[in-house]
């Protein structure tokens, strides 16, 4: 019989802890590069100054080992668990949460999670629970991605249950409308994750996963690559600009993930991400 590989969940805790800290201190290279390029291309002098501040800020955070942004986010963790892995030594979900607890504590990260949202809104004081998306995949590895998702941009996201007759033009309108209404609120320049298809629950996960793509990467399906380029052009034509103060850089990238949907439906979710696109991935 095929033997499963044992993986102690303490390794999961250690990995999550390390990712919480480094994701919050070190802006990914692709985002940093995109800010540098945007600063060159930006038409507005105020916009150029803002982009310069964001580049300086990333340099300071990395050098001083402090968070890029005080909103160090809700910890969103995507776990792809190989089906030939045996998670040993404890509860997997608890191990992830323990990593968040330790990472946010030892990294001097802000605890930004409130329990009982409708009444007490008491801070959970350790930034748990994590939002954990687990999928079972072939193989004997565990791939963990941690995303620090800030509240300001998340609040500007939208779910759109469109009619199939609205087609692509209806989707373009909904995406552009979402970014337009958000204006300066989500800390532009933003990154836009668009989920298309599935069901009401799945489409929002697709939109979030879309945000994990590397800036500058081209979608392998040329039709979708074209759709992303069209959306990016229309969003940047809004004139919102860096921090909403006016300018030619409103978004750094638009990423689409799609899947089949019901014949009666056309779900589309827009997950708005601020310029501080913080995420890390490890394989165990």
């Amino acid at each position, binding site marked *: 019989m095929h033997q499963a590989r044992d993986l102690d969940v303490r390794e999961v805790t250690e990995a999550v802890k390390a990712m919480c800290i480094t994701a919050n201190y070190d802006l990914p290279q692709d985002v940093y590069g995109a800010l540098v390029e945007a600063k060159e291309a930006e*038409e*507005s*002098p*105020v*916009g150029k*100054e*803002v982009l310069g*501040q*964001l580049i*300086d*800020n990333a340099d*300071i*955070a990395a050098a*001083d*080992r*402090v*968070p*890029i*942004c*005080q*909103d*160090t986010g809700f910890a969103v963790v995507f776990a792809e668990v190989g089906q030939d892995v045996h998670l040993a030594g404890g509860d997997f979900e608890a191990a992830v949460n323990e990593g968040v607890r330790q990472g946010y504590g030892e990294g*001097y*990260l*802000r*605890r*930004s999670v409130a329990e009982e949202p409708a009444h007490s*809104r008491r*801070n959970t*004081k350790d930034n748990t629970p994590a939002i954990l998306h687990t999928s079972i995949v072939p193989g004997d590895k565990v791939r963990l991605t941690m995303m620090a998702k800030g*509240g*300001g941009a998340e*609040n500007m996201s939208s779910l759109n249950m469109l009619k199939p007759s609205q087609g692509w033009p209806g989707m373009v309108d909904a995406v552009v409308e979402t970014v337009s209404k958000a*204006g*300066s*609120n989500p*800390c532009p320049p933003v990154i836009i994750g668009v989920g298309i298809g599935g069901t009401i629950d799945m489409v929002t996960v697709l939109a979030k996963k879309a945000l994990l793509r590397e800036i500058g990467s081209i979608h392998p399906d040329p039709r979708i690559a074209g759709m992303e380029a069209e959306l990016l*052009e*229309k969003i940047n*034509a*809004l*004139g*919102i*600009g860096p*921090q*909403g*103060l*006016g*300018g*030619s850089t409103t978004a750094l990238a638009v990423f689409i993930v799609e899947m089949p949907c019901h014949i009666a439906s056309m779900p589309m979710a827009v997950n708005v991400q*601020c*310029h*501080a696109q913080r995420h890390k991935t490890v394989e165990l």
Partner: protein
Amino acid sequence: MAARKITTPLTDDVVRDLKAGDAVRITGVVYQARDAAHKRLVALIEAGEPLPFELQGAVVYYMGPSPAKPGNVIGSAGPTTSGRMDAYAPLLMQHGLKGMVGKGLRTQEVKDAMREHTAVYFAATGGAGALLAKCIVGNEVIAWPELGAEAVARLEVKDFPAIVVNDCHGGDLYEEGRKRYAKTV
């Protein structure tokens, strides 16, 4: 960009002189307060009770910092979305608040209150918390420490960079800036 130096507390004369689009460097005391603190400040005003700081001429900074590392004055300290304080801001302006520092859109009611009570709204760069923390030289929690990052703190700032978004004359940089750079595609 040439920036104008201003000091707090703000007077009506200084506020009247500020125009949407002006870059400023703020020096003096600003009060850190966000969602939970605003709810409590407004409850105190409504109950006729004293506030933890003098509101006349005051500037509030919509911000909840990350914890300070040992030896640092404050953790990362960039602005939060101001719109969540819109429900409370007009009453504070009625009681003397002159300046707000944050990021993001304000409602018409807030903008009207700014004209009526001669107040100004500044944007600081959202997501530049490590950079902005360098301009904060003093930090003392003065009310509701149990709120953690949402407590009220008296912050001493030096040459804190901000830009006037809404002035007391109806000027709105978010609207004007956007119009200037909008294109048809």
